[in-house]
């Protein structure tokens, strides 16, 4: 894992000292809110509905156990004992007080974490495949490049006041778990003639104008990557629509100008930038790579694990749902669900964070990951440790076997916290999960991605959910629109609106009808919801959603 060098530590300490002084000046009245606001946003501090919110970046979703313990400390000391993991691999604290925030940032700095550029019109936290460095299907670990991008983009003087925010995601696996096609820039590591490089995708995004990213360059080498990305960002920085916030993202620039025109400008800019890079970035990358060497994998018997798997159905169910294939046969990737039925998706208490840190030390070489799907991952667990690990997780309400299933819902904070929200998301997620648990059909239903956003900005990724739910304010009442058929993978598809929205009381029964309709029409248990939707199209699902319209049509 990347460890800060002296430069990193000194930079962060200075930056934190500056912010401390800015907070003091705001409190003593020397700075107005208009002056202070951009400064606090640069440091991840928002003002939400009920309180301030501090958004801390978890670079490419990777955490050490010590960092996780420090996140727990922040939750306990300066918040209400919990934190909320987000769809951009950040953690948010919902209740900090302004005078405490400089101390929180110093505490984060002690373990090499910060909140810089988690807000504002800058390059945000670079996200990555949460199974990076561990997955069996991976071509290469994307995290060294992600760290290089973090260093390049952090405090980059040219990119501090851009037309709008800018998000980059990277994956080293052909099975895209990082939603690269819904980012301003998506990077997929690919192989050509025995060399690993990057397919560069540009102009993807969700929000009010969802767009699938387009391949601007099918293969960029390691040496060319940074100048190529700098060329993209700088062309957009000049040409992006600063006149209209809703048209400012790069997806609109690329859409308006056309990919070929935009690409030509990028190539022109690249030709200017490339000679200026001079190879230092590659030296730096080589150093960074040394931080991401795999742990010293232990060798042990797996017989005990097999016995437990064969004899304990509860353990077996958890293994079948929450484990992903590791690049080594005797290891496993464990996804810890922080989506216990009825609980807030993505929330973990300080005690749970500490336990996960301790279990990471005992079973997973001290490493953890945060997924954009709002779960916690132990990327390297020797299979011999799985039975004991499960026991410990279960005792702390962390053993829910629901990863990838109905109740593994992505939900943004919605109107329970967010100042931008138009409706609540969390209670909808809680109620769907509780209902599916009551019906006892979750494992029968199988893989189904439900994603909920509480406003059009789509932090809850509703466009790419198999079932997406968008909460809106319709004439002063919460109203929920359903989209169907979205796909967040390398074959990204934006879901289609099913029809009129549902009230707060009617949305959960509507989702239940959708799920039951799917169970009725699937050809076998192997046909997932999304497969069935692709086979039969929206009509049978719409009929289930709107039985009255269906009855009327039949009567006519």
């Amino acid at each position: 894992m990347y460890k800060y060098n002296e430069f990193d530590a000194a930079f962060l300490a200075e930056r934190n000292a500056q912010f401390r002084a800015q907070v003091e000046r705001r409190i003593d009245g020397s700075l107005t809110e208009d002056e202070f606001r951009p400064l606090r946003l640069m440091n991840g501090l928002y003002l939400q509905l009920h309180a301030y919110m501090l958004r801390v970046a978890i670079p490419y979703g990777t955490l050490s156990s010590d960092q996780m313990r420090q996140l727990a400390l922040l939750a306990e000391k300066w918040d209400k004992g919990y934190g909320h993991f987000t769809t951009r691999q950040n953690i948010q604290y919902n209740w900090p007080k302004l005078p405490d925030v400089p101390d929180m940032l110093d505490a984060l700095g002690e373990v090499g974490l910060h909140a810089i550029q988690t807000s504002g019109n800058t390059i945000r936290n670079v996200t990555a495949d949460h199974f990076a460095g561990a997955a069996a299907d991976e071509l290469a670990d994307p995290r060294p490049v992600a760290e290089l991008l973090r260093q390049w983009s952090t405090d980059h003087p040219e990119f501090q006041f851009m037309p709008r925010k800018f998000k980059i995601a990277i994956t080293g696996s052909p099975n895209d778990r990082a939603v690269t096609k819904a980012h301003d820039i998506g990077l997929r590591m690919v192989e050509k003639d025995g060399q690993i490089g990057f397919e560069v995708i540009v102009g993807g995004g969700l929000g009010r104008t969802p767009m699938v990213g387009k391949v601007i360059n099918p293969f960029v080498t390691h040496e060319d990557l940074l100048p190529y990305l700098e060329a993209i960002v700088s062309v957009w920085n000049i040409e992006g629509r600063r006149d209209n916030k809703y048209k400012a993202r790069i997806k609109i620039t690329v859409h308006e100008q056309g990919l070929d025109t935009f690409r030509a400008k990028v190539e022109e800019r690249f030709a200017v930038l490339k000679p200026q890079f001079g190879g230092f970035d590659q030296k730096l990358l080589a150093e960074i790579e040394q931080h991401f060497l795999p742990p010293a994998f232990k060798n042990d018997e797996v017989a005990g694990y097999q016995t437990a798997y064969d004899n304990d159905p509860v353990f077996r169910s958890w293994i079948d749902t929450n484990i992903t294939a590791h690049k080594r046969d005797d290891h496993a990737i464990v996804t810890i669900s922080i989506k216990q039925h009825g609980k807030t998706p993505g929330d973990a208490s300080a005690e749970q964070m500490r336990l996960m840190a301790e279990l990471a030390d005992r079973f997973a070489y001290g490493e953890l990951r945060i997924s954009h799907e709002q779960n916690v991952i132990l990327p390297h667990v020797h299979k011999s440790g799985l039975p004991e690990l499960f026991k410990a997780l279960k005792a702390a309400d962390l053993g829910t076997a629901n990863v990838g299933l109905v109740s593994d819902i992505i939900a943004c904070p919605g109107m329970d916290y967010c100042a931008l929200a138009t409706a609540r998301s969390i209670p909808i997620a809680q109620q769907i999960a509780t209902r599916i648990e009551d019906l006892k059909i979750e494992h029968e239903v199988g893989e189904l991605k439900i994603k909920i956003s509480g406003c059009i900005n789509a932090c809850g990724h509703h466009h790419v959910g198999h079932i997406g739910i968008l909460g809106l304010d319709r004439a002063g009442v919460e109203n929920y629109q359903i989209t169907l058929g979205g796909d967040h993978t390398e074959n990204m598809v934006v879901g289609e609106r099913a029809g009129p929205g549902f009230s707060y009381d009617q949305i959960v029964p509507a989702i239940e009808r959708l799920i039951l309709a799917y169970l009725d029409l699937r050809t076998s248990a192997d046909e997932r919801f999304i497969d069935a939707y692709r086979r039969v199209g929206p009509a049978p699902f719409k009929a289930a959603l709107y039985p009255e319209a269906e009855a009327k049509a039949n009567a006519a």
Partner: protein
Amino acid sequence: MARKFTPKVVTANHLLEGDVIYFTADDRWTRNLCEAELIEDEAHADVRLLDANRDQSIVVGVYLADAIAGTNGPEPTHFREDFRRTGPSNYFHGKQAEAKV
């Protein structure tokens, strides 16, 4: 035709705590909506907004929110303002918890 003015309260967040606060008729900031000044006149609302904005060292994000007269003072007309005066629905945190103390 201009839309008819609907009654308002002046609201904001507290600079230090971030907590939701309301402006009273006697120029104080209160944490309880029921103690806020209910403003029935548009011109008066503009003046009160200016008054409230003078307290830059106490408050952040001053705005006018719709409200109606209730039995115990102003009440929200929109669910957003109802959440602001209560707290989130997933935990017993925020104003709803403080009111119990």
